């Protein structure tokens, strides 16, 4: 077998092995169990395709803002009110945010509560010039 081919194949196997190992190391023992209500909330989040407008961990649609720490920022009551009595969308005069029933809202709030508990090196960063005190979680 040609030397270049040997080097190439060794690189492929080694890279996949290292990648698999670090992923295993990142997950094993580091991830908390997801509460069942949060799992239901995640399903609703997916079913309603929220990711097309919003980001979670910064990934998704860039127009609706990031929801990783939405629970910390708005609290249960704020989120419930927003989801069950949806306001107009940014730049719209008629079109409103998607409506959720009370039960769906509770489950999605449980999902947001779980999301904000994930230790992700405090991302998204707090605004550089934001001197306001952080709102208390209700």
């Amino acid at each position, binding site marked *: *077998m*040609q030397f*270049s*081919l040997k*080097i*190439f194949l060794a*690189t*492929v196997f080694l*890279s*996949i092995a*290292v*990648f698999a190992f*670090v992923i295993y*190391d*990142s*997950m094993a023992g*580091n*991830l908390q169990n*997801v509460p069942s209500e949060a*799992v239901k909330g*995640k399903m609703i989040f*997916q*079913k309603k*395709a*929220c*990711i*097309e*407008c919003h*980001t*979670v*961990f*910064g*990934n*998704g*649609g*860039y*127009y*609706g*803002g*990031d929801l*990783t720490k939405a629970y910390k920022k708005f609290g249960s009551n704020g989120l419930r009110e927003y989801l069950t009595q949806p306001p107009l*969308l*940014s*730049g*719209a*005069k008629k*079109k409103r945010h998607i409506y959720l029933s009370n039960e769906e809202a509770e489950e999605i709030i449980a999902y947001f509560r779980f*999301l904000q508990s*994930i*230790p*992700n*090196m405090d*991302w*998204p*960063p707090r*605004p*550089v*010039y*934001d001197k*306001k005190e952080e709102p208390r979680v209700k």
Partner: protein
Amino acid sequence: MFRSQHLSYKYALFAYFLFGLQGLVASGGAIDLLFPDLGNPIPFASGRAFHLNVSIYWPLIGMIGAMYFFFCQEAEREFYSLKLITINFWMLAGTLGLILGSLLLGFNEGREYLEAIWPLKLATAACTILLCFNLLTTYLASDMPRSRATLISMVTGSVTLIIFYVPNIVSYAHPTVDEIAKFMVVHIWEEMSLELIGTGVLAALLIQVTKVKRQAVETAIYLDITFAVLAGIIATGHHYYWIGVPSYWLWLGGTFSAMQVLPAIVLLYTTVKSITFKGISDLSYRDKITMFLIGSSMFYHIFGAGFLGFLMAYPPLNRYVHGTYITSAHSHLALFGVFGFLVLAVCFHILFTEIILGKKMYRWCWGAIISLNAGLLTMGLGLLIAGGLQVYFWRVIGLSIGETNEFIRPYLFIRAFGGFLYAIGSLTLTFVVIKGIWPKIQVIFQSEGRLSIVKCDDLHRMHGLVEELLQEEKKIEPLLKRIQVLYQRLLFFNKEK
């Protein structure tokens, strides 16, 4: 020509059709974002999911077609099974039709880029398995050296398509695990698997078009694909910085992402090395279009994917720019800019190997390509400015997302205008390709169909020789006129066949 190559035409044609469709739907989405009350017939979420999925699938289908075309040329034998090439096409086309149709009807699994429902993801995995089986059996049966870089590159790229897709057939309860799996497709497919396939296809194309010696580029191809694997896989870490994994991913992701510029530079070096100025002037109309599209791909590879990606992957900077329109600018420039243009180039080359495209139509092609580039650069610029302002208003001075959206609206208009230019280019190019192919459309979809007995390249060469003789030898003009008449008849015959 091999029969396998004839069977690959339908992949290239389908890729062009989807490419045209993508421009149209994406423009609709950009307008919907600016005027939410307009009453778009396609809901924004469905349209975006459609746009994301088609943006992955059309380059994939085009690249698979290109592999069927160039792999047998490089292996110097027919594919193990010709029937599987056709079956694979109908499976892929059917799967994609169902995916896009179901997304428009609102069946959405809610995972970005992986919105298709799981049975259709299973079907996608089955399509890639079929492709790998045909490639591997052909590779093993080939009499060519096993170490031929182009073959190795395409085989490895295809096998890794399956390895990294399988974990994504299902979704996971834990959002961190979901994100880990997702980027095995969103990142590794694009920046490793398709990079390997693309390098193999591009090298095979350059060897054919520019007549560069294989030995001269073989080492460079190996260097390129080794760097692509080494950097590509672990550089996935730059997508993992903020998803809830240990902090060592900042080092891993940052270091390996920085190395991702290397394969782009090696690829550029290989391409430039294989092209000479005289070589370009001697190219046929078709190959000039092909080379310009490859040149466009190289440009975005270096600036859109390479340097912009390099800056964005630096963790302290990524902390602020991540999750803004800057990421969107990067993905447009890297996904369409690099792979889109490359797939358009190889598919154009494939489709007009035997079918002759009228001289007038090439003018439209040039116009379309200029419009595509202008559109992409305008979109990229609009998104970069919008993203930069998002960082400032949202992440630095702490305005709300609603207030920030009001400030960036003008730049989203620029993005929509770029999208409009892009859509004009994509629809024009698709129209030209389909119009050029239309007289032979039935033959393309017949499993055993043959298109013509004359290759476009041979015709181009003969045309050049006759022109040269006409200029130099006035004395034998009558004789040459007779050759020219014969040549015209040959052309006419080829068109009618």
